[in-house]
């Protein structure tokens, strides 16, 4: 009876209550995300230089110019290479480290700390450190190669088109391995031991246990790691900007840096914003499956 009375009692605020509770967050969301996004969309349809008080509406001209811009072609190619490499390599290494740390290893907390530390270092510091390591004459990498008698392998790593992008990816991999490692480690610790015991009783080898017990149990973790890494990879900017400034020439430009150069350095804010809109649309397209999966899980 008591329950019936409670349900029939008029609600304070009626159907507006949920909106009132959501209002503070909505204001922030609209003010800091929706409004700037709509503004950017508008500016991408103009020839605004990013500094003057006036500009002209140019329709979709900025978008039509994108395919004929040779640097955009280079940037898209670099983005794709970057995405594939900086997702695949840290994910595999992170998984291997997690498996190793989930076993009987001495000093687990210390090792976890060591492997995760690069992820919390400021990116500009990482860029400076690796810039010094890569110095062709005095850097540790070439010095080490020369010490081993491998002088032929010593290269101007950041100073030539053929190696610059790959050289920047190495520290990116170094700093991005810790995140999947932690996620996989948490997921591994959630797999019931009984599954392995049953598999052992059934005569499964370690390799078979990995593929038929461990990997299926890690599916949710795979999904989170891949989705977040994919979004992160497509937004790459800071490592490239700090280590090569998009060079030599324009060989390491990615969409993020090329957008920045156009908006902030070339006074072509309309065109640069069109690049930003394209990046955003791609990131949204990539993020939709992840958001849907999270929504499904929550419901």
């Amino acid at each position, binding site marked *: 009876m008591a329950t019936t009375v409670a349900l029939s009692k008029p609600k304070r605020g009626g159907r507006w209550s949920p909106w009132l509770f959501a209002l503070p967050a909505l204001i922030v969301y609209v003010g800091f995300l929706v409004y700037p996004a709509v503004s950017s969309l*508008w500016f991408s349809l103009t020839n605004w230089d990013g*500094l003057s*008080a006036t500009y002209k*509406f140019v329709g979709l001209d900025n978008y039509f110019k994108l395919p004929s811009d040779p640097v955009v072609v280079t940037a898209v190619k670099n983005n794709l290479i970057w995405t594939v490499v900086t997702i695949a390599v840290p994910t595999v290494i992170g998984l291997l480290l997690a498996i190793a740390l989930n076993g009987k290893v001495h000093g687990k907390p210390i090792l976890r700390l060591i492997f995760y530390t690069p992820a919390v270092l400021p990116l500009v510091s990482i860029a400076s450190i690796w810039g010094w390591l890569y110095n062709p004459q005095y850097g540790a990498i070439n010095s080490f190669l020369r010490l081993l008698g491998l002088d032929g392998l010593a290269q*101007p790593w950041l100073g030539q*088109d053929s190696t610059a992008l790959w050289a920047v990816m190495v520290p990116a991999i170094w700093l991005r391995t810790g995140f999947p490692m932690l996620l996989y480690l948490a997921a591994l610790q959630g797999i019931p031991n009984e599954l392995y015991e049953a598999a052992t009783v059934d005569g499964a080898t370690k390799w078979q246990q990995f593929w038929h017990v461990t990997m299926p149990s890690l599916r949710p973790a795979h999904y989170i790691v891949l989705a977040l890494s994919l979004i992160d990879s497509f937004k790459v900017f800071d490592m490239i900007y700090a280590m090569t400034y998009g*060079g*030599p020439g324009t060989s390491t430009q990615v969409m993020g840096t090329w957008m920045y150069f156009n908006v902030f350095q070339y006074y*072509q804010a309309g065109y640069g914003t069109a690049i930003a809109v394209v990046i955003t649309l791609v990131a949204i397209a990539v993020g939709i499956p992840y958001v849907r999966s999270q929504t499904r899980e929550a419901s």
Partner: protein
Amino acid sequence: MSTFSRRGFLGLTSAAALGAGLSACTGGGTSTSSGGATGAASNDLRVFTYEGDETIGLFKAQLKKFDQQAGTTTTVESLPGSGAAVYPDKLRTQLLGGKGPDIWRIWGGQIGSPFAKAKQVLDLAPYYQKYGWDSSINKQAIEGMTFEGMKAGLPLLSLGLGAWYNKSLFAKAGVSAPPKSYAELEEVNDKLVAVGVTPCGLGGKYGWDIMRLFEYLLEHTAGPELHDKLLTGDESWDRPEVVEAFTLFKKWQDKKWLPQGALGLDPSDVEPWYVQGKTAYTIVGPWTEAAAILSAKKSPSGFGNFELPTDKTPARHSGFVEGYMINAKASNPDKAAELLDFLAKPETQKALQITASTVKGAEPDPKSLPLSAEWAQKYGSNPFYTIQDQAFPKKQADQYFSVQSDLLQGSVKPDAAAKKMQEIVSAWAKS
């Protein structure tokens, strides 16, 4: 196509409170200035600069002195070491945010030009007249901050670039005196390489540092008149003199007269190498005496400088100007101009230890900055060609660097590089 106002767009789409805030930032009220700017007069001034750690203290001390005599309160914000690649972005962001500084330091040429074209800058012509800057400031420098006839800035530094070298490394190579011709410079390079010393320390990250070598080679092959016409697009780059300059540029790398992998090196790392003994010389301006030699606690007597020999008449070196602009929306342009006039006094320039002042009577002190004084005495009155990251807008300058980068990596030949440069410059000139 319709013309829109950015403010109009913001006003239409933003909330009323936000709109009111933004319009407040743009200033209003009646004119109080002889410069014609609008805004309620205030004695608070804000200066944005890129003074380094070694000079910011001197600058603040002079601002304090000005405040005492002018009754102002001046605050200063500095972004040291950011360089022309980053500093203008920060300034632009501040201006767009509606709270730009009243006064800012900036380079001349194509770096300062966009701020004038966007009408963010006060026309200083009335103040030039009022304070007589036309007669007290170097005329060539004033041209470097005059855009489409508008005196957009007050240039206080006119910096010439030359070779600054390490005497002990020259001696190690058996070189007793700086070269007097381009052929002699090549001989010096060969001698340095023979004793295991990299001659010229330049870094290609950002493009502008290694460009200093190419622009020198272009001056050597093309000569002053043609060089100037090339920079304005009045002559074609697709010509033998340019091809020769690109050929020499590649030669410098192939003969190891530049550091290994120079294209990927950061100029801020490489510039002090001549002081550290890792390279014999670099191409730099007089600021290096304080920034690299004195800051490393080295005696200036161990170093020297010389104008890179072009074999042409008149002898010129690369140069650029730096100065100050006043915000078109400055709340008190008269006080801002008064501050610029204070900074333009010879005694203030001396107190700031400016090594290459445009102000007559503010030559560097030979006791504290002997090498800068020597440079000013020997070469300070020589004409200069515009340093090429100020000669071209940033986009074209980056394309220029890109051609140089491709050439050094062997992916384009000198004749193709010259043709490519002609495409870049003619497209810019047409636009």
